[in-house]
């Protein structure tokens, strides 16, 4: 491949506007490459404002055709962004795309340095590395594999529901895996939704029912994904279907078991701790599927050995105390993760007294209080269950935009606080105070809703609440909760006595988000939300092909945006399914059989299960369709029997030599 000095390498240095050219002397770099790397095979070096523009690409194509280039090095942004662009340009001109190498002089040079001279010298060294490396690149052909048209949707909140329905309606099979006994997610707990105040159940339940009855959807609730293997187009998924202790075929969902079950349990999930459920229960009347689960940790029979009231009364003999967890395996081509969020734990803000002061409530509790099907049938009352508050304080940004907790904005809290202000006002006639830092009502019809709540007479205090206390200083404060706040518009401290405090708690990543991310081979941001492939241009995809994210799992957002992302993820999945087959990057590992000693060091290492050992011949083999080219085994094989295309030892060593400028006149490199 090399040594015969047949290389004709073209080097293209991009300005990226001023992104690169502001720090790196691009012109000098290009001239340097043309003269000082000539003996390494460089026949042309150019600089251009935007290499990724069609004119920039045409430059490369033209040179390939006219100068007979057989290797190309583009010094520009990160390969994540434009490797494909430049590879395609090479392919258009008839050059195998894998003979094109990118050098990142933006992310790795101009964006991280301020010293122009040093940055320019570093850019030269990196280009020398790229040139040395590309000499050892070999032409590669992509691997075509069929795409399994089935899709896995994890999480049955509104985002997951939307995604599943879109794909199923398009005629493809969907497996929906939901951890809780019913789908619906957080939205199922709300009464009204901002800004239109339509009833959450009225708009959500029809969709839930569609999921439950859709011929193309296999709904697995009370289930969790345990293992994911394979790659885009061909994932094998292992799901644990937890034992409901109910024969779902026989059960008709009549509800007699829950009625007869003597064991009451505080419902910390659906009722946010405000109400009770039984030991055998469906979380709410409209649950889908309408099949109960038995909570064996709280069931009297499991505790004491007797009871079985449910079994006695069940008219169809559906109760099955012997039922075990089931492990299911199935194959899918794409995966949508819509696992949503957890609520910030208001106890952490100790100065607001949640958990200590009974009449301090969280947002989710208030959602249940306002809900006609909730524990108080929609009456907004104090913790005693009967007293109607006369004054209510709603505190925005609890746990959000706060250096002590989460730095980010939870997006929905302002609107949710306005919704509560409206509902409290409407249902109790109480005086309502909203304590906000900034009012963020930035979507369609949101600010109009704010105007409406303003007109309804809600009092707005701009300032961060310092404390909620039950220690009175005046007669007027006796028996009240006092909100201590600096009113920044008036410029003075205020103490406002109220009967009820509502904490607009923010959204947090799921507690297990990191583990879930690992299971699916994606990553979480510093804050813990799943990371999208690109924050602006690809918010739905992830760095792992075939895995998409939607809804609050990606970051805080409201229902319309969650739905939009659910639909967008489906569009991406459907696009993939339509392709029918997919070209896998030919960056793969393979075993040179004669060199393999069968030591078996590599055998247990592949995260994609691509490695098989042949006992009979005592050699290891790699399945090229399963291998993702991660390089783990290549690094581990002590015999050097595994090679990775695109990352061969020769390529890496040559690149290092290039970086160290071993083959060029170094004096001239550093100006």
């Amino acid at each position, binding site marked *: 491949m090399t040594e015969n000095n047949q290389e004709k390498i073209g080097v293209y240095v991009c300005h990226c506007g001023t992104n690169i050219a502001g720090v790196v002397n691009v012109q000098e770099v290009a001239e340097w490459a043309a003269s000082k790397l000539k003996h390494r095979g460089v026949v042309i070096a150019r600089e251009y404002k935007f290499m990724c523009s069609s004119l920039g690409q045409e430059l490369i194509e033209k040179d390939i055709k006219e100068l007979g280039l057989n290797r190309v090095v583009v010094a520009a942004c990160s390969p994540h962004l434009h490797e494909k662009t430049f590879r395609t340009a090479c392919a258009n001109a008839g050059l195998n795309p894998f003979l094109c190498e990118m050098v990142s002089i933006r992310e790795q040079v101009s964006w991280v340095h301020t010293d122009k001279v040093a940055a320019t010298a570093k850019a030269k060294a990196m280009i020398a590395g790229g040139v040395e490396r590309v000499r050892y690149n070999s032409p590669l052909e992509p691997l075509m594999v069929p795409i399994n048209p089935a899709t896995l949707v994890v999480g049955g909140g509104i985002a997951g529901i939307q995604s599943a329905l879109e794909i199923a309606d398009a005629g493809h099979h969907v497996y929906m895996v939901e951890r809780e006994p019913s789908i619906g997610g957080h939205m199922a707990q709300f009464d009204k939704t901002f800004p239109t105040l339509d009833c959450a159940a009225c708009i959500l339940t029809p969709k839930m029912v569609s999921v439950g009855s859709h011929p193309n959807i296999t709904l697995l609730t009370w289930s969790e994904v345990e293992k994911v293997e394979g790659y885009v187009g061909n994932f094998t998924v292992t799901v644990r279907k937890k034992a409901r202790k109910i024969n779902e075929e026989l059960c008709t969902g009549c509800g007699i078991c829950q009625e007869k079950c003597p064991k009451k349990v505080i419902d910390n999930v659906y009722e946010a701790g405000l109400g009770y459920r039984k030991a055998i229960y469906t979380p709410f009347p409209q649950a889908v599927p309408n099949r109960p689960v038995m909570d064996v940790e709280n069931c009297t029979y499991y505790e004491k050995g007797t009871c079985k009231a449910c079994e006695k009364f069940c008219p169809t003999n559906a109760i099955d105390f012997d039922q075990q967890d089931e492990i299911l395996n199935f194959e899918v081509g794409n995966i949508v993760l819509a696992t949503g969020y957890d609520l910030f734990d208001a106890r952490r803000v100790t100065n607001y007294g949640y958990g200590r002061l009974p009449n301090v409530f969280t947002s989710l509790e208030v959602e249940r209080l306002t809900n006609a099907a909730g524990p108080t049938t929609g009456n907004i009352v104090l913790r005693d269950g009967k007293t109607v508050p006369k004054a209510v304080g709603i505190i925005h940004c609890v746990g959000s935009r706060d250096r002590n907790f989460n730095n980010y904005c939870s997006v929905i809290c302002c609107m949710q606080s306005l919704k509560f202000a409206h509902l409290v006002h409407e249902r109790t006639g109480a005086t309502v105070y909203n304590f906000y830092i900034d009012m963020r009502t930035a979507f369609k019809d949101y600010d109009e809703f704010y105007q409406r709540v303003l007109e309804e007479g809600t009092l707005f205090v701009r300032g961060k609440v310092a404390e909620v206390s039950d220690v009175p200083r005046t007669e007027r404060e006796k028996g009240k909760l006092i909100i201590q706040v600096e009113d920044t518009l008036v410029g003075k401290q205020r103490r406002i006595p109220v009967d009820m405090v509502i904490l607009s708690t923010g959204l947090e990543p799921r507690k297990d988000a990191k583990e879930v991310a690992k299971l699916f081979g994606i990553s979480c941001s510093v804050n813990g939300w799943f990371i999208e492939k690109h924050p602006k241009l690809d918010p739905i995809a992830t760095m792992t092909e075939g895995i998409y994210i939607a809804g609050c799992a990606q970051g805080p957002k409201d229902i319309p945006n969650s739905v939009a992302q659910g639909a967008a993820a489906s569009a991406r999945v459907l696009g993939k399914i339509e392709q029918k087959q997919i070209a896998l990057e030919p960056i793969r590992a393979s075993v040179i059989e004669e060199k393999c*000693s*069968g*030591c*078996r060091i590599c055998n247990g290492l592949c995260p994609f299960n691509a490695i098989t050992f042949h006992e009979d011949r005592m050699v290891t083999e790699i399945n090229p369709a399963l291998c993702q080219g991660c390089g783990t085994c290549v*690094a*581990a*094989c*002590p015999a050097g029997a595994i090679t990775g295309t695109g990352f061969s030892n020769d390529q890496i060593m040559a690149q290092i030599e290039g970086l160290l400028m071993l083959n060029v006149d170094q004096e001239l490199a550093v100006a």
Partner: protein
Amino acid sequence: MTEKPKFAMYWAASCGGCEIAVLNIHEKILDVDANFDVVFWPVAMDAKYKDVEAMEDGSILLTLFNGGIRNDENEHIAKLLRKKSKILVAFGSCANEGCIPGLANLSDSREIVHTAFNTISTDNPHEIYPMTSYDVPEGEIHIPKILPVLKTLDQVVDVDYYMPGCPPESHQIAAVIDLVVDVLHGKAELPPKGTVIGAGNSTVCDECKRTRNVKTIKSFQRIWGVAPDPSLCLLEQGIPCNGPATRSGCNARCPTAGAQCIGCYGPAEGVADYGARLISAFASVIDAKDPQEIDRILDGLVDPTGQFYRFNLAGSLLKAAVPAWKAESTHEKEKA
């Protein structure tokens, strides 16, 4: 009768084991004598450097060179023999990769001299150190100067073939002699320049008869502390066997005898750094996730350099520790 082709063998920084291994081929040594005219072999016969210097360039057909380049005498003879030989073979681990003498590259050469001449094991009350030149009534006499780092033969001169092993196994030496004799008689062809001869293309595990499974290591054991299962892979039993990384060719002698492979046949074909390969291999099969647990397991490898670089330090990517390397660059600059 036409003249017999000429043969030479030389020892530089080495222990002498390679020479013994050559003699250990028994009656095969007669083939050497029958086919070659032995012109230079200091360990076996008297010879003077000036006789070699007087020979015509390229007049020696085959030179087996063992030992690393430790002092200026070694360097001089290496260059001399290169000039005089058609085929120069780096013979044995020292010439190939530095071997045990190469471990001295961990220290500055002054420190080495100091350790040898003035530590508790050496009674040297007058601090007498060897001098490289000394005036005597008959004139000035010299002893060779130690170089800052030990180099492998091919770091100093161009090498045609490599024959690894500490020492090379006698059956492999015999096979190579057979081959050269066949080439002389036109019955075989020489392999391409740069080939490793007298060894296999895989690693020691390939020749090891022990059964092996997917490896998971929970702790490393020292060989004297355990009675290993006689039929199971030693590495799986936590005994740090270097077999997976070491070039085959020895018939897995050590593991067969119940001792771990220590790596004398050097890296496998195409491997740039033996120790690094082995480190990443061992690290890959350590069965723990908790960093403290991993540290505890790794502490079981009491002498990492000895484990991973016993034979290969001078031939590795790093070659030497920083003090030795610094002294070497100063030395290079002074020469230039």
